[in-house]
């Protein structure tokens, strides 16, 4: 439950020094493209921030987002921010089960009416409520109920933000995103499969500092993290521009770290912070490890063409279409040519030679 202690108290209890805390504030400011003059303001606001109540609803998801957010970092100030929030309801992480768990959700909703943050991961099935239920409550009903009195909603992961993998063609469950259902609340989409942990702590820090949501892009994603494409920030970009591409995953080009475009990298259409913040405490990220970007932070990435096909390649295999169209064209062309030859032949046969005498006679 949300208690009265501030984030400052909590951090001190965990042995975080003032210096460490200010370092975190500076890093947060730079991460969110805020001027350095904002650092004291951030520090002051975070210091005094009360523990916000967070209700975390998991619908049609794989728990990858929770795994990413809770386990990818060793204990750090970021994770303490995460610890600091009062996670009042989360299937995977909470100790309570069954009726007790649902009671915790209802109590948190009731006590923090209009103030709690709702985090959703997973998509919501509209095809049949029975496809995904929690304690006998359908995902749709639980989302509508819980969203009603939330201050803001954070849709974590591509499933909650855009429908994600459950929505992949043919979308058997009729999966939709949070924004498809809730239209009267501020929604922050933190897309990715899974999203970068720093991004969610950044969004939470912003919310705690300013009491508002960060500037969002067309897909309601925080611009500071999703403002630039992977392609534009990729360290392999110079190879793309020079025309140097890996043709297979083990050729000389791949070993030399050339561009992975031809191997299916979706970096040019993907907007995320992987190329700059990297993963696992800045260790690496997919392209650095030699695999193209899958485009996981974009809507319908699963249906947007084969993962190992270049971005410019059509979605379905067109070689057959081209072969059939070519055969049809040949057949029709041959028929047309046949008719043309016949007509020309007939015209030639019907041709009569006319002499000057003939013309004089007829005039």
């Amino acid at each position, binding site marked *: 439950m949300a208690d009265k202690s501030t984030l400052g108290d909590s951090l001190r209890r965990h042995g975080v020094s003032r210096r460490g805390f200010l370092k975190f504030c500076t890093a947060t400011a730079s991460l969110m493209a805020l001027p350095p003059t904002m650092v004291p303001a951030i520090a002051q606001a975070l210091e005094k921030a009360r523990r916000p109540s967070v209700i975390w609803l998991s619908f049609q998801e794989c728990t990858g987002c929770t795994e990413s957010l809770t386990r990818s970092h060793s204990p750090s100030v970021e994770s303490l921010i995460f610890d600091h929030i009062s996670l009042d309801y989360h299937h995977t992480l909470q100790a309570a089960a069954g009726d007790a768990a649902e009671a915790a959700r209802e109590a948190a909703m009731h006590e923090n009416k209009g103030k709690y943050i709702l985090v959703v991961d997973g998509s919501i099935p509209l095809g049949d409520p029975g496809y995904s239920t929690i304690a006998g409550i359908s995902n749709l009903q639980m989302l509508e109920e819980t969203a009603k009195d939330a201050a803001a909603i954070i849709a974590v992961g591509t499933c909650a933000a855009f429908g994600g993998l459950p929505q992949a063609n043919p979308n058997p469950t009729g999966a939709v995103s949070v924004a498809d259902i809730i239209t009267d609340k501020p929604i922050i989409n933190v897309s990715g499969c899974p999203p970068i942990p720093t991004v969610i702590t950044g969004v939470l820090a912003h919310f705690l500092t300013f009491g508002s949501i960060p500037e969002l892009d067309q897909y309601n994603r925080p611009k500071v993290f999703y403002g630039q494409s992977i392609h534009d920030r990729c360290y392999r970009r110079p190879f793309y521009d020079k025309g140097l591409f890996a043709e297979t995953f083990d050729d000389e080009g791949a070993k030399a770290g050339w561009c992975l475009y031809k191997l299916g990298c979706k970096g040019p*259409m993907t907007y995320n912070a992987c190329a700059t913040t990297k993963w696992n405490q800045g260790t690496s990220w997919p392209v650095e490890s030699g695999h193209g970007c899958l485009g996981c932070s974009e809507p319908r990435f699963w249906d947007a063409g084969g993962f190992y096909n270049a971005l410019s390649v059509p979605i379905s295999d067109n070689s057959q279409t081209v072969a059939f169209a070519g055969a049809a064209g040949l057949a029709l062309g041959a028929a047309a040519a046949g008719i043309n030859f016949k007509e020309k032949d007939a015209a030639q046969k019907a041709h009569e030679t006319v002499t000057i005498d003939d013309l004089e006679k007829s005039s």
Partner: protein
Amino acid sequence: MNEPMDFLIWTKGTAFNIAVTIFVIGVILRLFEVISLGRKQNLAEARGTEFGPGMKTILTRSIPDLGTFRRQPLTVVTGYMFHIGLFISLFLFVPHIELFRATFGISWPGLPTPIVDAAAVLAIVGLLAGLWHRIMNPVMQKITTWEDWLVWALTFLPILTGYLAYHRLVNPYPVILGLHILSVEALMIAFPFTKLMHTFTVFLSRWYNGAMNGRRGVES
């Protein structure tokens, strides 16, 4: 929220299938038609040969002619600018080559992107200057038909949208990439039924011109 991506997926899927089918059937059909019709039989007595002058004209008509250049410099300059620019951006941009490889099974090496980018600008400027020439020049006004406007627009849009997509000047990105692909599909569908077919018949018609003149004993 997903509409831009739905649009991109449609242009890369269903729409591309339709466009490529019409394009392939149409082009092959038209080529058969053009070649099988040939020219009307000339019954007059031949005063020269056909083959040699035909081949020679393919070459001479492909290099700028000083007389034409003096009379209509813009026609010559914009024509070369646009055609060279379009050729480089269409055939030597690596993502396009990957598309040709996936669709027709053939590929070739590409050029670095800054060169392709410059070529696209060359093509855009060439096309705009050509349009200005077409609007301003009295002779061009008289001989311009609605098909010329259509073909100009169908050629201009893919280059413009391609440039905008490459430089990410329109957000969200799937919208402009989808518009680029859609504009190319419009071009592909109109291709077999308009003067765009000259792409495939240009050398053939140059040969015919040379051959006809050669038969008459006229230099071309």
